[in-house]
């Protein structure tokens, strides 16, 4: 196939346009490449003629869109797509990625029939090998999830592996996963087939046409400037692959698309003496860092080495492009690994070592969605070398997104808005992708953190906390403490923490949790996104009432937990809003909402100069004082009575703490425990922290980290946006009806959908599971994404989990669906349905019994002296 492609390229050089050689040429515009006249306007302009661009064009056309123009600077499918190894694998770590790959597989399979273009599609199946028990656990977790999606796969023994593939050396394997429906094909031909099908649906395709920059007016795409003229358009789709970053920056108002290319190598050989069958399964040996597929009787083998070579950091660099040569010395470890896996290949003759740059993103997930800066600017890029696997599905979701305003699945994990401008530094990207590329084949254990690109955003207390033994994790560039290593303990190495079992910080977090329960702890939570909305009149209140489901017309000083819903009632954001005074509000959202929430608010805010929205995240350091003695610490520091009578729950007051005045004290903790959040102007942060720590000493104060917080909030059944909640879950589905005021007199966004849902009932329900027969010390720990079984039937997946030190059990949170046994259709989930089931959670193939609960344990958490129960009793009421 590769060889054929080369031929194609040669042919194409000779012929005037790429169309002339394909059978479908007649259907494509017959215009000669040289005398091309671009249309003056179009609805959509897609930049990039690789598999992503053609897939978006294909799916947009399928959805009935007209006036679609696809521009390609070189020739169609001649970038990374042309060099792609052509392996489609559904064995992915994220459910959404599995779904995209599954859809792609089904799409490509019938593409040849649909278009008449040969794609070389062969269903070979794939085998992922495990050299270690940990790797096998990782494969088992993927296997569990593939099975519940209806993708056949099984864990097999080394012996079975040897039967499936004749050349493999299996003596060092402990097991493997076989996915029989995975396939291989020529990705370039797939892209051409998609292009051809699209052009049959009147998509106009122009190659050798480069997009220079975008025309934007008032934050809205108005057109595209190309080297062959200008096209007016409403929508622009950036599918420029490794050039997407540069293209994004070429605008006057730059769109930050954080991705970076690395060189990627694979080897092609001549055929074996007895040529390898074309349906020989593809081998993925992540411990050996290689993949191997059959290729024209020989093999194609590449891998993801430990020391990647980032490239094109400075943008398109002719020097680097010319220097894209084979680097055998760099490939040596992978070659060794290949020969260890298939010793018989020693005598096989080399044909070529291909160097094809692949694009990687800072978190190993692809990038899709609309730019928060420019309306109508869509992106689909950064495939982390799984472009072929994701191409079909990603194109479909993006097309849906453009057509309907949202895709049919939750794609927050892939949304461009998870990134901000802060991830677009070239240095950051260069360093980060050097970590990401090897990570593709590294063992993915729970709670791993990136090591590169760290310490970008920090709280003013960072050094203080670090000196006290803090271990850090990063969210949206912000350093957050995970836990604090006591001074008498040895430093824990990172390697030790890499386990699917009980981690070594267990006791540390336990003591932090105990301290939160019995005394008082301080957690630095400065990373949260903080907005202030002020107006001259009632505009702020009016806007918030329209955007949020809870009633915000509350007395000054009150805090309201509320969702920011979309039209279908799903959570766009889950936040706490404090009414500072009649006309201004303080809004606290999850850390990674900084870009998403901002753009949502901007989009829905009336253009009113009297209304001011300000991002004040950087202005405040947030300290969370959790625990029964927090009240004592604060009252001692402020000389103000802090009893529930004076300071009721969910209340916000500006007061002095120590010498510092103007500290926003809020009686909430994000965990359900008693305590306070202090929002401290950053210049006072160190002072207040020092005061709190010194006064708190006699109450047994200590630092705590996010792991303790997580354990506390999960055992209290607190859902977090981004983990448990997303744009497809409504308040009714997670037992938060009490936070929705349907009758507040404002037709807020999502109200109709909620009313409807209230009438019809919900189709999934957020449920808490307590693992019954799970041995914390010996069994695999749950993470998230584990399948939930009710009476032996798959009903949903977990979204988060933690060990509850109060219950001394693992607690998983997740959604329960009710799939009809006959049709598999989703049905209404009632309380009775939940309560009457026997549940099991599947952790890497092992099912653990679980008790389902729709409400948190209240008896275990009663706090006589605080009115925190208001928050909780609300749960019971509804």
């Amino acid at each position: 196939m590769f060889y054929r492609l080369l031929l194609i390229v040669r042919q194409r050089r000779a012929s005037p346009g790429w169309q002339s050689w394909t059978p479908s040429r007649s259907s494509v515009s017959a215009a000669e490449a040289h005398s091309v006249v671009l249309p003056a306007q179009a609805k959509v302009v897609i930049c990039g003629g690789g598999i992503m661009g053609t897939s978006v064009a294909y799916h947009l056309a399928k959805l009935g869109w007209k006036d679609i123009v696809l521009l390609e600077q070189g020739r169609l499918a001649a970038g990374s797509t042309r060099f792609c190894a052509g392996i489609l694998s559904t064995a992915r770590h994220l459910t959404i990625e599995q779904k995209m790959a599954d859809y792609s597989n089904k799409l490509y399979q019938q593409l040849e029939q649909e278009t008449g273009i040969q794609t070389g599609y062969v269903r070979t199946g794939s085998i992922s090998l495990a050299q270690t028990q940990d790797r096998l656990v990782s494969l088992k977790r993927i296997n569990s999830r593939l099975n519940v999606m209806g993708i056949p796969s099984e864990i097999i023994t080394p012996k079975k592996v040897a039967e499936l593939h004749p050349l493999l050396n299996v003596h060092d394997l402990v097991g493997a996963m076989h996915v029989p429906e995975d396939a291989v094909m020529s990705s370039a031909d797939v892209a051409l087939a998609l292009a051809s099908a699209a052009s049959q649906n009147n998509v106009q395709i122009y190659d050798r046409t480069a997009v220079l920059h975008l025309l934007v007016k008032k934050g809205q795409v108005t057109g595209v400037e190309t080297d062959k003229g200008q096209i007016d358009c409403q929508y622009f789709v950036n599918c420029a692959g490794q050039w997407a970053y540069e293209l994004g920056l070429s605008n006057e108002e730059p769109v930050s698309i954080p991705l970076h290319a690395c060189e990627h190598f694979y080897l092609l050989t001549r055929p074996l003496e007895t040529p390898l069958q074309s349906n020989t399964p593809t081998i993925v040996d992540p411990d050996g860092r290689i993949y191997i597929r059959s290729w024209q009787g020989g093999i194609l083998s590449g891998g993801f080495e430990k020391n990647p070579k980032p490239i094109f950091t400075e943008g398109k660099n002719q020097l680097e492009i010319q220097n894209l040569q084979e680097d055998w010395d760099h490939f040596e470890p992978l070659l060794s690994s290949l020969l260890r896996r298939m010793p018989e290949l020693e005598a096989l003759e080399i044909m070529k070592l291909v160097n094809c740059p692949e694009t990687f993103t800072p978190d190993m997930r692809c990038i899709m969605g609309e730019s928060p800066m420019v309306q109508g600017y869509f992106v689909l890029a950064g495939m982390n070398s799984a472009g072929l696997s994701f191409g079909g599905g990603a194109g479909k979701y993006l097309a849906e997104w453009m057509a309907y305003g949202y895709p049919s699945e939750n794609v927050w994990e892939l949304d461009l808005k998870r990134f901000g401008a802060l991830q677009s530094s070239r240095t950051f990207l260069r360093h980060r992708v050097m970590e990401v590329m090897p990570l593709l084949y590294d063992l993915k254990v729970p709670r791993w953190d990136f090591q590169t690109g760290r310490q970008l955003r920090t709280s003013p207390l960072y050094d203080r906390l670090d000196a006290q033994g803090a271990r850090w994790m990063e969210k949206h560039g912000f350093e957050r403490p995970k836990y604090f290593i006591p001074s008498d303990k040895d430093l824990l190495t990172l390697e030790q923490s890499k386990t699917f079992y009980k981690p070594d910080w267990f006791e540390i977090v336990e003591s932090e949790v105990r301290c939160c329960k019995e005394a008082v702890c301080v957690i630095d939570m400065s990373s949260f996104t903080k907005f202030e909305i002020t107006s001259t009149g009632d505009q702020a209140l009016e806007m918030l009432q329209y955007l949020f489901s809870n009633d915000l017309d509350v007395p000054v000083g009150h805090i309201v937990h509320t969702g920011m819903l979309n039209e279908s009632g799903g959570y766009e954001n889950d936040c706490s809003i404090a009414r500072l005074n009649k006309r201004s509000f303080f809004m606290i959202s999850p850390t990674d909402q900084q870009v998403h929430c901002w753009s949502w608010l901007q989009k829905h805010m009336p253009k009113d100069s009297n209304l001011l929205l300000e991002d004040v995240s950087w202005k405040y350091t947030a300290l969370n004082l959790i625990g029964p003695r927090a009240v004592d610490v604060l009252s001692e520091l402020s000389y103000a009575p802090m009893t529930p009578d004076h300071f009721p729950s969910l209340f916000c007051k500006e007061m002095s703490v120590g010498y510092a005045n103007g500290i926003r004290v809020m009686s909430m903790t994000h965990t359900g425990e008693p305590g306070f959040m202090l929002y401290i102007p950053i210049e006072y942060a160190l002072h207040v922290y020092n005061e709190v720590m010194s006064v708190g000493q006699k109450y047994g104060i200590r630092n705590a980290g996010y792991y303790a917080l997580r354990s506390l909030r999960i055992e209290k059944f607190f859902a977090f946006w981004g983990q448990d909640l997303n744009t497809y879950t409504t308040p009714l589905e997670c037992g938060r009806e009490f936070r929705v005021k349907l009758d507040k007199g404002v037709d807020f966004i999502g109200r109709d959908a909620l009313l409807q849902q209230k009438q019809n009932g919900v189709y999934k329900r957020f449920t808490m599971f307590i693992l019954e027969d799970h041995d914390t010390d010996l069994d695999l720990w749950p993470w998230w994404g584990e399948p939930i079984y009710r009476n032996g039937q798959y009903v949903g997946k977990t979204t988060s989990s933690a060990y509850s030190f109060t219950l001394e059990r693992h607690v998983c949170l997740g959604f329960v669906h009710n799939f009809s046994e006959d049709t598999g259709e989703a049905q209404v989930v009632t309380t009775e349905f939940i309560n009457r089931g026997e549940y099991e959670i599947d952790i890497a193939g092992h099912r653990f019994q679980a008790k389902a609960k729709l409400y948190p344990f209240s008896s275990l958490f009663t706090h006589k002296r605080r009115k925190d129960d208001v928050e909780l009793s609300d749960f019971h009421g509804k």
Partner: protein
Amino acid sequence: MSISALLSMGRCCCRCCCPRGLWMLSSPCCDDRRMCVCPGPRRIGIPVRSPSLPLFSDAMPAPSQLFFPLIRNCELSRIYGTVCYCHHKHFCCSPPPVPHSRLRYTLHPAYATFCRPKENWWQYTQGRRYASTPQKFYLTPPQVNSILKANEYSFKVPEFDGKNVSSVLGFDSNQLPANAPIEDRRSAATCLQTRGMLLGVFDGHAGCACSQAVSERLFYYIAVSLLPHETLLEIENAVESGRALLPILQWHKHPNDYFSKEASKLYFNSLRTYWQELIDLNTGESTDIDVKEALINAFKRLDNDISLEAQVGDPNSFLNYLVLRVAFSGATACVAHVDGVDLHVANTGDSRAMLGVQEEDGSWSAVTLSNDHNAQNQRELERLKLEHPKNEAKSVVKQDRLLGLLMPFRAFGDVKFKWSIDLQKRVIESGPDQLNDNEYTKFIPPNYYTPPYLTAEPEVIYHRLRPQDKFLVLATDGLWETMHRQDVVRIVGEYLTGMHHQQPIAVGGYKVTLGQMHGLLTERRAKMSSVFEDQNAATHLIRHAVGNNEFGAVDHERLSKMLSLPEELARMYRDDITIIIVQFNSHVVGAYQNQE
């Protein structure tokens, strides 16, 4: 390190470290280290107060530090044992000087054969650890590495230090002694009150006192010359009122790069006088400081101060001796000042600054950023002739040397070429005995009519950095004598871009099997890891400079021989080599360009 420690170590060398093939002595005098030492011109920093010892043998204890890491290494002590024995042979056993060609005797196989029986005897009697070492006298690769790496230093500049984006990525430096003690010095520092970084190499002659002083002091003079008036006032006020001083420089020093504590007060006072004058001179008008002018002023001023301090003397006899030694020895200097895209190179003497430029096609070319001040430079010859009366035209430069004596035509110190005869005589007479007894200092150069013949004024070359300018090599003539600039730039360039290993393999149209390729690659990797384990570009360059064979590849045998030369022979085969390689950040340089 105490002297006694050194001595005992020296003795240890003599006793136990018999080099194969060099066992020449069974005389008991071997036990006395001093016996070995005395006839030789120089030893490892052992102060021997013998009147016959030349003045410039450098009684300062510090240079011994340069060798300390070598000596610390047990294996390496053997090398110096070798050296020691050569001495012996040279000066004790065969008194007539050995003709140059015969100096290669250390490597001569015949000698090895000749010596073997004695070695066996020695092994028998001493029963030490050399039984397993091969008969041929070669250093093992680890031994070679520890010699080469003893003085290496690397500094990475944070790309953003909180104030400025730096166009310098970092630098690697290293030096390899040929003289004992080494006469080269190096310095690197970041200017804290102004922007920019200073890097310099200093090649001393007639001892290391002057190069040492210049390496300590010059950057302060430059930094002060660059300071704006307000900062100078602030500093002066701080000194006046005894407050803490603003730090002016942040030094990046190898542990062996020492500063003399004794003279710091003296040096500081001279520096203070300088900035006080700068303050007084300031008219309050010009705020722009010209770097070129600042560099020239700093060079001239420091040389002037060196000269003045020697004339005035110091009540402290140690210091008095020190300032005289500084003034009577000499040093060349090649200093680079990098601030953003502005690169200034100030050069005095025959060290050189070379810019490594990567062409569009990836190849490397060298751009010279300094002119040698020696007889090979026509303009220098003309300058000298112009500065002195016509009748001296023939005597000013003789045999390519200044007054037939000095190779560099510009230098710090060397007051013998600067002071009038009267002044020289007066200073020497009033000076300490050591000075008075020394033939060299008393010696007045021939044809000495119209001093000064020598200046420290540098030639400053400005270069605006471009993205293709990847690095700058500052090195003393020890490097440039052995390697062509084009080779230097290519070797460093390929090393820095990671292409320092062999030519890339390409399959091309050949029939290669996976197994063959694997074998080839494994071999290449093994070779890589054993030979090219340099973490430091300067070390890598020295390895090539010393060990390159006629094909331009590092030859371990040759390298080993060169590094095991006895030290006074070493000086015949090579000079001290000091190298600083500054790497530029093309991203930052490119960004600067785009801004404008």
